[in-house]
């Protein structure tokens, strides 16, 4: 028996929203990273993958995914920022001496700077979308896939961008370091926020959160760097006739 008067947009609801949206964004990142690994398989596979994403369910899939992501992002920013805003009001006079109690505390550099790392991620996402999503598609051109379909040459855009300028690679690597910091606290925190942690699982979720954060950020960190360094494997001008050439570079890599 609950009284509707007892329900309001509470601090707990804000945490639930921050956690749910944060975890959804993490799941998107995992899918995004796995998708990006097709870059290693050469232009044919990567372009076919991009083509598939854009035409799956007559293009409805990507539309829904984009709207969902935008919604997640906006809700995440609203709820997370409003959690952070509460702290100044709740402690108007600061301590003269601030120290850590140690022990069970999970207070770290990462947890204290979520707003800063989040803000940098937001800037990064804007630059990233501007560069890749809203790139001049005409200028990049298309590529004929082996099934005869004329697909946008996303491979050329991605590989070309990272090979053109090491500064761009560096920018990505820095942004991914910041993402790592956000998620070092973020992933375990989200499990805690949605009420998933229990006394027995808490230490493991904390550890798993850090492991996922490092693995995810490292993946996105290494991709641009490898593309820049392995110019023989990642050639933006590869056409279908030279795919075998790319495969020849890629397969020995896999073997060892």
């Amino acid at each position, binding site marked *: 028996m609950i009284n509707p008067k007892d*329900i309001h947009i509470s601090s707990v609801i804000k945490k639930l929203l921050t956690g749910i949206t944060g975890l959804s964004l993490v799941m998107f990142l995992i899918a995004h990273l796995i998708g990006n690994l097709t870059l290693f398989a050469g232009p044919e596979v990567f372009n076919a993958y991009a083509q598939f994403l854009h035409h799956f369910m007559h293009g409805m899939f990507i539309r829904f995914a984009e709207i969902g992501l935008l919604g997640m992002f906006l809700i995440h920013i609203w709820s997370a920022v409003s959690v952070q805003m509460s702290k100044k009001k709740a402690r108007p006079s*600061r*301590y*003269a001496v601030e120290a*850590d109690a140690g022990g069970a*505390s999970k207070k770290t550099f990462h947890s204290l700077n979520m707003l800063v790392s989040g803000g940098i991620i937001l800037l990064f996402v804007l630059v990233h979308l501007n560069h890749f999503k809203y790139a001049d598609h005409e200028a990049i051109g298309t590529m004929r896939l082996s099934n005869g379909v004329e697909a946008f040459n996303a491979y050329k855009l991605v590989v070309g961008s990272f090979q053109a300028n090491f500064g761009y690679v560096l920018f990505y690597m820095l942004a991914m370091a910041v993402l790592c910091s956000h998620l070092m606290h973020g992933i*375990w925190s989200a499990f*805690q*926020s949605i009420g998933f942690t229990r006394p027995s699982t*808490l230490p493991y979720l904390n550890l798993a959160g850090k492991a996922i954060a490092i693995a995810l950020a490292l993946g996105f960190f290494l991709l641009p760097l490898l593309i820049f360094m392995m110019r023989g494997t990642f050639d933006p001008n590869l056409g279908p006739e030279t795919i075998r050439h790319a495969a020849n570079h890629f397969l020995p890599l896999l073997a060892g």
Partner: protein
Amino acid sequence: MKVNLRIWRQPGPHAPGRLVDYSIDGIDPSQSFLEMLDALNEKLIKEGKEPVAFESDCREGICGNCGLVINGVAHGPKAACTTCEVRMRQFEDGQTITVEPFRAKAFPMIKDLVVNRSAFDRIMSKGGFVAVNSGSAQDANLQPIHKDDAEHAMDAAACIGCGACVAACPNASASLFVGAKVSQYTWLPQGKVERHGRVLKMVKQMDAEGFGDCSNHAECEAACPKEISVSNISRMRREYTKALLAGV
């Protein structure tokens, strides 16, 4: 032993406060922190000065009255201890010790090191009880309760309401206190009856009191003299979600 103290002095709720330096000699290392403050106050009274106002009652770690922030840590340097349980041997001879009150908007200043923690009482009045008839003492033994559940309930019920979680939290959030109180009842059959209304009402009062929101730093658990786990906060959120779903 001798210690140098920097103590927050504030004559009243709206008067400006500041840290004032004191120095006291002849302290026995086995004395408690509060006994050291008693000695300081005797000295101040003899000198015709205003003694330092601080709170204490049981002086054995069960009433939760004595909370102070000592060198930036709520309840001082020793884990799982209230301020009254801290001994002077935990400090170096000649050390400078900064003593401040628990700082939070929801804990308004009264004087010096004393703050008003009745916000916790108002939260308790919204659901920190069982209103159903739970029988007499012997009836408790007729209710089969799993050993683990009883242990979890007891761990949460160990909260003495001292407010160290709020004092230690970078956001001045009371989530650990409310989490512990909500958990304590939901583990037990007597508390389950009113579980949905309880969590909604207690959280609503917590927000109304002006505590900050939680960022999961878990600094509260580290400062808690009863080592109450932040998994109780997770449980409170789970209870809250269940209450919302029950309302749909």
